[in-house]
């Protein structure tokens, strides 16, 4: 009895107490309301997918995968659609093509502009230029479209012509008709100009949040401004740049009005970027919507569903990549 050390019970670690807090009724009601509000976004996203697929189910049922992989879009006169054929392949190809051009052009411009604002611009000009970029990122796409139609597309088509003259042997830059305007190249550049401020704005923000400790360390080791940027700022900000790029890509994939205004809608898959034909899913919907029969509307809803899935996939992948590649994870 006296030797408690030996029997093992006395030295056993105490069990952890689980702390239970009984929430008051007010708190339970409060949490319920807040949760309901927060989950509305979840419900909404589900409803979007559900309604688009239900209302267009007939189209997917009839055409199956052909709706995605064929390029014929013929709306017949019959109300039951028996003489209609719908396929969005050409539009999907166009969507991806135009968006890729936009991102490839916009990314280096945006990173350069973001570095310029944060590390090269004199400090007293910085806040003004930041605001200018943020405003440009919020300029409506119809304004970009108007500017593109009246000012920019002429210059862009002449660049296309120059590109064809010097690099026409390369399949991407070949053309059948020497027209050059309203081509994927022009539309891609317009989208690039549209998304450059978006990517710049996001990248600039993450660059400006680089820990000053690390920048100082780089300078104190005899590093130049570029040394600090390459060794500290870019690795630290890369996930933010990826995030901004994905945001821009998402905007480009779903852009309607600007593409509608500067791109010829042709239902033929086209990878020659200087050719005056192309299209994207969003502008297809805007183009056909006005005069569509009830049956064609269903096909447009189906096209919208395909676009929805495409952009959601890109977006979720982007969110995942950004969370994974953050250099300060560990």
């Amino acid at each position, binding site marked *: 009895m006296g030797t408690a050390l030996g029997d093992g019970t006395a030295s056993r670690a105490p069990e952890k107490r689980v702390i239970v807090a009984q929430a008051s009724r007010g708190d339970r009601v409060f949490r319920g309301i807040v949760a309901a509000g927060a989950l509305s976004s979840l419900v909404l996203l589900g409803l979007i997918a559900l309604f688009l697929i239900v209302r267009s189910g007939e189209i997917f049922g009839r055409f199956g995968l052909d709706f995605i992989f064929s390029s014929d879009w013929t709306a017949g006169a019959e109300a039951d659609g028996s003489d209609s054929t719908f396929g969005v392949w050409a539009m999907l190809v166009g969507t991806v093509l135009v968006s890729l051009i936009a991102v490839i052009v916009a990314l280096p411009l945006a990173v350069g502009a973001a570095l310029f604002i944060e590390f090269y611009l004199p*400090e007293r000009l910085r806040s003004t230029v930041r605001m200018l970029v943020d405003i440009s990122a919020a300029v409506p796409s119809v304004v970009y479209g108007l500017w593109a139609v009246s000012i920019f597309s002429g210059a862009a088509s002449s660049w296309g012509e120059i590109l064809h003259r010097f690099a026409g042997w390369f399949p991407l830059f070949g053309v059948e008709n020497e027209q050059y305007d309203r081509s994927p190249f022009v539309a891609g550049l317009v989208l690039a100009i549209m998304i450059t401020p978006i990517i710049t704005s996001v990248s600039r923000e993450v660059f400006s949040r680089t*820990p000053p*400790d*690390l920048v*100082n*360390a*780089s*300078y*104190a*080791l*005899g*590093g*130049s401004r570029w*040394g600090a940027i390459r*060794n*500290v700022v870019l*690795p*630290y900000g890369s996930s933010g740049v990826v995030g901004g790029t994905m945001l821009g890509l998402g905007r480009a994939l779903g852009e309607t009005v600007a593409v509608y205004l500067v791109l010829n809608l042709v239902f033929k898959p086209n990878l020659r970027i200087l050719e005056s034909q192309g299209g994207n899913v969003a502008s297809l919907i805007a183009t056909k919507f006005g005069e569509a029969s009830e049956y064609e509307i269903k096909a447009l809803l189906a096209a919208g569903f395909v676009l929805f899935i495409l952009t959601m996939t890109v977006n979720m992948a982007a969110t995942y990549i950004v969370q994974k590649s953050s*250099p*300060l994870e*560990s």
Partner: protein
Amino acid sequence: MTDVKGHEVTQMVETQEAPATTGGQLAGLEARGIHAWFDKHHALEDINLFFPANTVTGLIGPSGCGKSTFLRILNRMHEFIPRAAMAGEVLLHDADIYDPSVNPAEIRLKIGMVFQKPNPFPAMTIAENVSAGLKLAKLKVSNRDELVEDCLTRAGLWKEVKDRLDAKGGSLSGGQQQRLCIARALAVNPEVLLMDEPCSALDPGSTLRIEETIGELSKTMTIVIVTHNMQQAARVSDRCAFFLADGGPGRLIESGLTSHMFTTPTDKRTEDYVQGRFG
């Protein structure tokens, strides 16, 4: 490499070689008539101080007395603070480091710095962190692994990390991170090493290790260390300089051999401070 003239300002970069240890003769660092301002605020007034080669000088004084600002002036880190200004000159090998013809990056290569908070590059491995300075300054080195080992050994970290040189710098403990930062500063072979309260964020064990390291390093370089801790100043420094702001800009009250400063200071305020009556 034998006389003062041999160390031309550009020599370090042009030779493209970073020897692991230096056998050359070191010159001291001299600050003449240093003032500092932050916008309109006059932070430091007329500091004249000489740091002899191969000595450890402790800069002591209560917070806000401008000792860290003074340290940052010594390797041109002061100019990264917006609206900062200065006056006076800092002489390394009799040449003013603030001369318009001088490239500040090359000055920082010769006058290294260790910061208050450990700041290893989080995306780099331990080995990459040590050689980061070489990469930044585009210095070639014949045997990188040897240099990494040598610097880590001198910083007193080699035994602890030799098996995980490919781990990220951020995975180390605070004290280890600070020693990694010291190793990183050593890799470019500076002539002077500035340390801004290097132990203030560390535990007593790590502090002791770093103090030992400082003693070893002073054989090959000139060290200036800012510290709040009187015992530390007494332990590691050969010379001391006492700064005090007293409502106005920070001033140098007294400087000299540490033994004198702690036992027979000439100024009453120094005596009060080192004996812990204020600050």
